C-alpha cells in the first residue's frame, strides 16, 4: 500500500533482518513514480526497515524534506533534480547544466546535491525522457523512425504540448533549432495526457509530447520518434538519498546499485502499462518485477 | 359580527386549551374574555384571526366561515394586539406604528401623521419616543406602542390580548377611556382579553368568564355577572369583594335617593351628577369629608345620598 503511511509495516516481516528503524520514501504522485517508490519500499522492507511512502505533487514539496531528513530516499530523475537544484541555487535564468550526457550531468549535480545534504547514487540506464510521438500510420507512410526523418519531410507541423514548450531547448526550441522542424502552432495540451493522444489520433495535431516510458502508445496505434540528435537531457533514474541517512546505512548503496543496474527503460514502460491499462496496483507490479529480476 | 360555534383547541401534546366554546360578538360590541392564567383566552383570540387553527367547531365573521377566508385578507380587517407585544425590533417606534397604514397603501406622510396622533393618544410624545428603537423603551411604553400600532389601521374588528397589562392605573384608565371613546364613536367590534376583572367590568359590554381548561363559565353583562354569578367559580373569580366592585358599575338610582328636606346646601359639598356611579358618590363624600352628597340632574338637586343609602342601593342592585 504505497499511498498510506499506515500501510508501512506490511512487509517488515519478510526477512529475519530485524527492525532497522523507519525510512521515508518520497516521490511524486504519478504512475512511474508510484511504481518506483513501491519497488524502493519493498527493497527496504526486505532489508528490515519499516517504510513510509509519501508521494506528493511536486518536487518543491519533497526536495526540502529530503535535504532536512523528513524524507530519506527518493527515486528521482537525473536531469530533473539537476535542473531544479541548479535554478534554485543560480536563479531561473541560469544556464542549464544538464545535458543528454549522463556523466557530465551527474558531475554537475553532485556538488549541488552535496550542498543540500543529498547524496546521489549512480544512475540507472533506465531513462524517462520527454519524447515525441506520431501515429503509427503516419510513421509507416513516411518511413519515419527519428525526428530527423520528420524534419527531412519538411512538412509544417502542429505540435501538441504543454504551453511552456515554446522556446525550451528540449521542446519547441530544440525541435526547430536543432532539427529544423517547421512548427506552425503549439496546441496547449498536457504532457502525456489522453487529450494529446486523442488529438494526434484525430489528426488535430501532427505530433504530441509524452515520455519514453509511456507504455500505452502501442495499444493506441502511436509510436515514438527517436531523439537522434539528443535534445532531451539525461533523465536516468537516480536514487537521491539524504546524506546522513546514507552515512548511517552505507550498505544500502550496494543494494540500490543492484536495483539500478537491473532496471531498464522497457521495464518502466511495461510496469507503467500494467498500472495504467490493466489497473494493477503499483505494489503488485513492483513485487512482480523484483521477483522476476531475482532481487527479493 | 363574530360567532364561535362549538370551538375547541387541543394542542399537539394533548393539552386541551379550549373546549366546546360558543360565543358571539355583536357589531360595535366590546366583549371581554377574562379568566385565570392559562385558561385559553389567548388561544381563543388567535383562533379568531386564524393564527391558531381550531381543532373543532366553526368561527364566523360577518357570517363568513373564517376557515374559508384568505387569512391575509381576513387579518387586514382585524386589528391585533399580541400579548407578548411583538414590536418590530428593527424599526423605530414611529415606523412600527406606521406599518399597518402603509400595508393598506397609505402615503408615508399620512401614515406618519396618523402614527403621531396615535402615539400621543397612548401617552407617548412622538417627538421624544418616535425615533427610538423598541429596546430603548420601558416595558409599559412598549406595550402602548403595540396598542397604537393595532389602532393605526382603524380596522372594524379588534382583537386585543392584555393590551393594558403593563401600564400603571393612571395611564391605564386614560387608555381605557380613550379606547372606549374611539370604540363607541367608530362602532368597532372588539374582543379584549384581560385577567383584570376590574378592567373587564369597566370596559366590557359583555364579559365571558373562562374556567381553566377553556370552558366558558358565564357570558353576560358585567352587571349580570356581578349580581348573578352562574356558579361558585364565577362568584369566586369575580371576587369576595365583588359587592364593592359593583360600586364601579352601579349607577345611582334616582328613585331611591333620600329627600333634600332639612339639608342645608352648605352641607351638600360638591354635588354629583345623577349619571354618576355609586363609587363616585362615595368618593365625593370622602373627598369632602361629609356624611352625605348631593345629587343633581343638570342644575337641579334631586336628592342626597348617604353611606347607608349607597349601601342600600348596592344591595338592591345585587338582587
Amino acid at each position, binding site marked *: 500500500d504505497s499511498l498510506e503511511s499506515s500501510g508501512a509495516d506490511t512487509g517488515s516481516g519478510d526477512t529475519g533482518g530485524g527492525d532497522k528503524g523507519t525510512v521515508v520514501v518520497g516521490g511524486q504522485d504519478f504512475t512511474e513514480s508510484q511504481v518506483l517508490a513501491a519497488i524502493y519500499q519493498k527493497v527496504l522492507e526486505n532489508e528490515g526497515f519499516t517504510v513510509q511512502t509519501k508521494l506528493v505533487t511536486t518536487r518543491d514539496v519533497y526536495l526540502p524534506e529530503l535535504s532536512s531528513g523528513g524524507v530519506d530516499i527518493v527515486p528521482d530523475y537525473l536531469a530533473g533534480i539537476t535542473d531544479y537544484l541548479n535554478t534554485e541555487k543560480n536563479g531561473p535564468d541560469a544556464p542549464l547544466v544538464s545535458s543528454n550526457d549522463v556523466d557530465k550531468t551527474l558531475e554537475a549535480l553532485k556538488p549541488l546535491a552535496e550542498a543540500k545534504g543529498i547524496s546521489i547514487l549512480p544512475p540507472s540506464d533506465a531513462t524517462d525522457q520527454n519524447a515525441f510521438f506520431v501515429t503509427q500510420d503516419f510513421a509507416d507512410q513516411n518511413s519515419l523512425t527519428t525526428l530527423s526523418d520528420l524534419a527531412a519531410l519538411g512538412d509544417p507541423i502542429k505540435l501538441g504540448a504543454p504551453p511552456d514548450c515554446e522556446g525550451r531547448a528540449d521542446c519547441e526550441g530544440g525541435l526547430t533549432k536543432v532539427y529544423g522542424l517547421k512548427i506552425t502552432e503549439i496546441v496547449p495540451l498536457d504532457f502525456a495526457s489522453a487529450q494529446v493522444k486523442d488529438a494526434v489520433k484525430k489528426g488535430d495535431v501532427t505530433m504530441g509530447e509524452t515520455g519514453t516510458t509511456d507504455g500505452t502508445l502501442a495499444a493506441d496505434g502511436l509510436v515514438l520518434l527517436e531523439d537522434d540528435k539528443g535534445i532531451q537531457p539525461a533523465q536516468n533514474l537516480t536514487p537521491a538519498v539524504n546524506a546522513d541517512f546514507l552515512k548511517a546505512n552505507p550498505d544500502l548503496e550496494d543494494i540500490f546499485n543492484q536495483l539500478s543496474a537491473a532496471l531498464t527503460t522497457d521495464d518502466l514502460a511495461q510496469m507503467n502499462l500494467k498500472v495504467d491499462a490493466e489497473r494493477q496496483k503499483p505494489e503488485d507490479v513492483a513485487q512482480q518485477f523484483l521477483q522476476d529480476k531475482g532481487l527479493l | 359580527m363574530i360567532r364561535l360555534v362549538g370551538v375547541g383547541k387541543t394542542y399537539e401534546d394533548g393539552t386541551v386549551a379550549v373546549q366546546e366554546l360558543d360565543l358571539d360578538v355583536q357589531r360595535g360590541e366590546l366583549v371581554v374574555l377574562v379568566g385565570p392564567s392559562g385558561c385559553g383566552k389567548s388561544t381563543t383570540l388567535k383562533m379568531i384571526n386564524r*393564527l391558531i387553527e381550531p381543532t373543532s367547531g366553526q368561527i364566523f365573521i360577518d357570517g363568513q366561515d373564517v376557515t374559508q377566508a384568505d387569512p*391575509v385578507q381576513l387579518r387586514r380587517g382585524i386589528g391585533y394586539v399580541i400579548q407578548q407585544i411583538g*414590536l*418590530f*425590533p*428593527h*424599526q423605530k417606534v414611529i415606523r412600527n406604528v406606521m406599518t399597518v397604514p402603509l*400595508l393598506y397603501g397609505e402615503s408615508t406622510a399620512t401614515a406618519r401623521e396618523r402614527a403621531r396622533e396615535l402615539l400621543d393618544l397612548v401617552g407617548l410624545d412622538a417627538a421624544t419616543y418616535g425615533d427610538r428603537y423598541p429596546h430603548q423603551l420601558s416595558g409599559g411604553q412598549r406595550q402602548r406602542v*403595540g396598542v397604537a400600532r*393595532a389602532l393605526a389601521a382603524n380596522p372594524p374588528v379588534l382583537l386585543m390580548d392584555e393590551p393594558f397589562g403593563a401600564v400603571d392605573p393612571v395611564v391605564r384608565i386614560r387608555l381605557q377611556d380613550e379606547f372606549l371613546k374611539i370604540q363607541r364613536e367608530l362602532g368597532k367590534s372588539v374582543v379584549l382579553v384581560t385577567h383584570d376583572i376590574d378592567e373587564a367590568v369597566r370596559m366590557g359590554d359583555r364579559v365571558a368568564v373562562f374556567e381553566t381548561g377553556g370552558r366558558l363559565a358565564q357570558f353576560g353583562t358585567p352587571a349580570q355577572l356581578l349580581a348573578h354569578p352562574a356558579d361558585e367559580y364565577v362568584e369566586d373569580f369575580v371576587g369576595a369583594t365583588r359587592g364593592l366592585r359593583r360600586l364601579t358599575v352601579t349607577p345611582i338610582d334616582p328613585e331611591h335617593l333620600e329627600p333634600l328636606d332639612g339639608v342645608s346646601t352648605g352641607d351638600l359639598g360638591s354635588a354629583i351628577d345623577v349619571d354618576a356611579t355609586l363609587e363616585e358618590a362615595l368618593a365625593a363624600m370622602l373627598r369632602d369629608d361629609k356624611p352625605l352628597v348631593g345629587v343633581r340632574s343638570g342644575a337641579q338637586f334631586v336628592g342626597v345620598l348617604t353611606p347607608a343609602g349607597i349601601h342600600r342601593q348596592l344591595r338592591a342592585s345585587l338582587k
Partner: protein
Amino acid sequence: MSAQAAEVAKCYLDNSWICGRYWSDYRPELTDATVQHLWITVVSVLVGLVAAVPLALLARRNPTVESLVVGGTTIIYTIPSLALFSLLLPFTGLSPTTVIIGLALYSLTILVRNVLAGLRAVPDEVVEAARGMGYSRVRLLTRVELPLALPIIMAGLRVAAVSTVALATIGAIVSYGGLGNLLLQAVGNQFKAQIFAASLLCILLAIALDLVLVGAQRLLTPWTRHAR
C-alpha cells in the same frame, strides 16, 4: 540581447518579488484583471444569494425539501472547481457565464444554510404580530423576516464573498479568472513580481469586499447598534 536590454529594470532581471516597475508597466493589465475579478465575484455571489433565498424558503416549509437542498448543495461543494467548470463548459463555453455559474453554485452552499438559520432565528412573537396584522407571506418575508435575519445572512454573505474572491482565480482555466489569469501565467513562467502583485490584489479585494459588506450591514441594521 536586444537593444532594449539596457532599459530592462533590475528587478525584472533579478526576478524580485517586489518590483515597482512591474506595477507601473503592468498597470492596465492589473486594473483590467482586478475589475474582472471584482465583477465576476460580485455577480456570482449575487446570483448565489438570489438562488439561496427561495431555496431556503422552500427548505423551511418542508423537511424533505430541506434534505434535498442541503444534500444537493453539499454535493456541489464537493465537486472540485475544475470538474465543475468542465461539466459546464459544453453548455456555456469559454464565457464568464461558466465561471459565474460555478462560483454562484459554491456560494449558494454557504448562503442557503445561513439564510435558513437566519430566518429561524427571528423571534416567534414578532412573526406572530406581523401575521396577525395581515402581512402577506411576501411582505412578512421582505419587511420582517429578512431584515431581522440580516445579521446572520450577512455573516454568510461575507464568507461567500471572501471565498469567491479566492475561488474566482480558478476561472483562469477558461480565461475568465481576473487576477487568476495573471497568477496562472506568472506561476507558469516564474514571474515573481506578478505573482506577488496578483496575490496582493486578491487579498486586498477580499478585504475590501468584506469591509463593504460590514459597512452595508451597519447601515442596514441600525437597530443593532444601540443594543447592550
